[in-house]
């Protein structure tokens, strides 16, 4: 196994986060609420570690991290001013990109086909950060996202199997 591959990078990061999450000792560790909370944290840790493990610049990683930060900050309502500013900046950027996307997708839609655009919008919702991309880049991001998701699933499966043994 390549020690610097995406898989190993993600695995180390995720395991570290997992141990941190497990290190918290709640009052009743097996209550459903506690399990749910842990589930949310683990999922967030998985997404975050995946986004950080990616070496190449990708739109979806930034979108994932932004979503996580906004969600966590929204809950705790900490540093709202900075978050709001960053959010506004990102919204402006996405709005601008959306305008570009509209201009390009009109021609693209004409060329690609109307039905395809409907499914493309569905794909946009699935892939984080996909709303602000043109169709061509969306397919690129989807390919990379699928690759990272498969890695994530493999590693988490292994960890889950190991833990359940």
């Amino acid at each position: 196994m390549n020690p610097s591959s995406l898989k190993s990078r993600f695995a180390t990061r995720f395991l570290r986060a997992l141990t941190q999450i497990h290190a918290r000792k709640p009052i009743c560790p097996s209550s459903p609420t506690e399990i749910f909370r842990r589930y949310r944290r683990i999922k967030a840790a998985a997404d975050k570690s995946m986004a950080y493990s990616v070496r190449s610049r990708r739109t979806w990683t930034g979108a994932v991290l932004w979503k996580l930060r906004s969600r966590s900050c929204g809950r705790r309502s900490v540093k709202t001013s900075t978050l709001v500013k960053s959010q506004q900046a990102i919204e402006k950027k996405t709005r601008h990109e959306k305008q570009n996307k509209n201009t390009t997708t009109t021609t693209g839609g004409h060329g690609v086909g109307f039905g395809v655009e409907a499914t493309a919008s569905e794909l946009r919702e699935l892939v984080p950060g996909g709303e602000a991309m043109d169709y061509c880049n969306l397919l690129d991001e989807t390919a990379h996202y699928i690759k990272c998701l498969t890695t994530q699933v493999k590693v988490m499966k292994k960890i889950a199997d190991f833990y359940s043994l």
Partner: protein
Amino acid sequence: MAEVLNRTAAQRQPTWNTRGLNSATEQVGNWFLNPNWNNSMDQSDPFESALSSMVSSPAAASNVPVSGENVMMRELIGKLGNICNSGDASCYSTPLNSPPRLNLSMVNLPNQSTLAPFSADPGFADRAARLSCFSTGGNFGGLNDPLMDSFKLSGNQSVNVNGTQSNQNSPMAGNSGSDKKNTGVSRSSSPENAESGVSKEESSVSQQIPSRNDAGTRKRKSIPRGKAKETPSPAAADDKVASENDESNSKRSKRDGAPAGNGNAKATNDGDEKRSKENSKPPEPPKDYIHVRARRGQATDSHSLAERVRREKISERMKFLQDLVPGCNKVIGKAVMLDEIINYVQSLQRQVEFLSMKLATVNPRMDVNMEALLSKMFQSRGLLPQGIYSMDSSAQAFPFGYQPQQGLPLNNGIPNITETQFSMKTQGFQLPSINGFTDANPQVGSVWEDDLQSIVQMGFGQNQPQSYQGSITTGQVKIEL
């Protein structure tokens, strides 16, 4: 028509004016015959740079609207095509339909940069490029051998640049049509000489084109760029080639990309990609080529061209996705493929959620961190036997350095047991060592011993993961209590 071509071939540059092929060729020939132009072309060195400079300067300076350029281009191409049409109707008849009179004066592009001697016809370059493209684009069958031979004679003299590949450059005649054909021939016939091919191409192009408009440059630039790109990325994947071309061409395309926009850049890039592909496989007919250029009966304006380029890119990416998504090979068609991709992404996301839920419910064993990590790494890396041996030795060594402190050693012992049990699963010979372990240290805590014995017995008895699971959990419960 063969005689006409022969006449052109036989002509030397200075006498070209006097010969009358038709008015169009005459005017075309004038440009080639210009001695200044010859002198400027004597420097064989930095053809690429010269061409790029020529390309960039008009491109950067020109703000001619694309539509206007296209109109002019089309007319010029049509006129040029008619020259060729006279020679070989099959090759150029369809896309080039315009009056035979080559009225070059109508083309007024603002940039007459380096090659001042040329009566500024920026469209000429485009026409040249297109014709060369046409010639290479599978129309070689149409080119009669006598034509090529006749061109060879004049080609070698007229074009100084192609000294390196004069043999292959044979069709580099002064005649615009023949010249284009020749460039096409040379390009296809000498793919390995990418750089020299580039130089040839550029030289031939530069000879004819003092300045470029964006639409025109689109095509022409793609030729040399494609060649230039061919050497660095002959074996690269399609998308990689495209991306590389995009990145390296971004400078050039941006220079002239202002009016044309992304579409043109994409066209050049895709054209480069196509050309590089085509150059890397010289003998086979450049089918991809045709897709980039104007197909028969299809519009040649920048929009449809950009559209086509975009479609090529998208289909390329769809193919790549098809490889990623399992079970997509049978599916043909964009819509169904997209549905499959969406389903796959959804299933992957759901799997991640399910696994994270599973991890949340699993009883956390924090102390197992490093060992878990290591073992997992070992497993994933396939070093399982060696890892187990090392664990085994550490397990054996552990009790001897062991102090009767039940808290820490117990916690550390469990992972050793789990490790050894894993090894037992796979090999099943650590049991004696564990037995020895328990026997050797009677002063081990009673809980510890009981757990060990129960675990060992269970392991001995069944040697199955489920039993181990049960034993581990029971052991854990005991120890945690």
